[in-house]
């Protein structure tokens, strides 16, 4: 496995997966943080843990998009030297060279590289709200609902980018 290939794995299977796998637990924890469902002691424990959890999720998304954009993406879009006929080492050009494969770049990669950046913005806002209002999340329904919705939006963005990344890498693997 090449160095960039290894970075691609770290980008998607480590950083990206931390958020995607942790999302379910975070969503359940946030959703169930209600006065009617918890004891005062339980709310206190959850309120103390939830900010750490959501900040880790937000940080993982930042690592994901930064590693993807500045470490993996340059290899993907590197131009092939003039006269090159074997384009497999130049994924973007390899995809665009064939009309049957071009879709994976014009739709797949174009969507992935853009929608991914919405995820850390949304997750950071959610983590901030959860951290600042942790002691009143159980009571403050509008704040809790919006923090939950922000996390869900972040998941949709990250999940879309992750799925597209896996598919594009299958069509044109990073060398």
């Amino acid at each position, binding site marked *: 496995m090449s160095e960039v290939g290894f970075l691609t794995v770290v980008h998607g299977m480590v950083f990206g997966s931390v958020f995607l796998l942790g999302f379910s637990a975070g969503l359940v924890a946030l959703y169930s943080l209600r006065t009617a469902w918890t004891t005062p002691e339980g709310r206190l424990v959850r309120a103390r843990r939830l900010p750490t959890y959501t900040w880790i999720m937000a940080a993982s998304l930042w690592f994901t998009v930064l590693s993807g*954009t*500045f470490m993996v*993406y*340059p290899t993907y*879009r*590197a131009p092939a030297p003039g006269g090159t006929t074997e384009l497999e080492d130049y994924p973007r050009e390899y995809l665009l060279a064939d009309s049957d494969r071009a879709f994976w770049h*014009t*739709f797949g990669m*174009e*969507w992935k*590289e*853009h*929608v991914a*950046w*919405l995820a850390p*913005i*949304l997750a*950071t*806002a959610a983590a*901030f*709200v959860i951290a*600042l*209002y942790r*002691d*009143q999340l159980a*009571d*403050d329904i*509008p*704040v809790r*609902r*919006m*923090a939950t*919705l*922000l996390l869900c*939006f972040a998941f*949709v*963005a990250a999940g879309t980018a992750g799925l597209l990344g896996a598919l594009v890498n299958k069509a044109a693997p990073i060398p």
Partner: protein
Amino acid sequence: MTVELVEVTPTDSNHLPNGAAAAAILASGIGCTAFGVIVVLTEASSDIAGTLTLFQQVGPLSGKVAIALFVWLSAWAVLHKIIGPRQVNLRTTNVVASILIVIGFLLTFPPMFTLFGD
């Protein structure tokens, strides 16, 4: 649509006013929409795409990201300064933010932004 700012005395003095939450939520929506608009502008003009190439290896994406993050963080700082200490109508804020986020998703969807292609 305007966000009505309703000054309400919190019933519990231990509760923080929700203005800081509203600022963070609204700013995230503004950041998402800003990113979508920049993507559309880049698609519409190759000159803009060239200008936004801050790092050659990354291409125009580097500039798109830089501007979007700047807009997001600036909006957050300004909104936090203005409404942070206040109690605001969070339902309206949440609706506006949700609309802005959806706009950001739509404008970063290739069939949408390629409509504005150069």
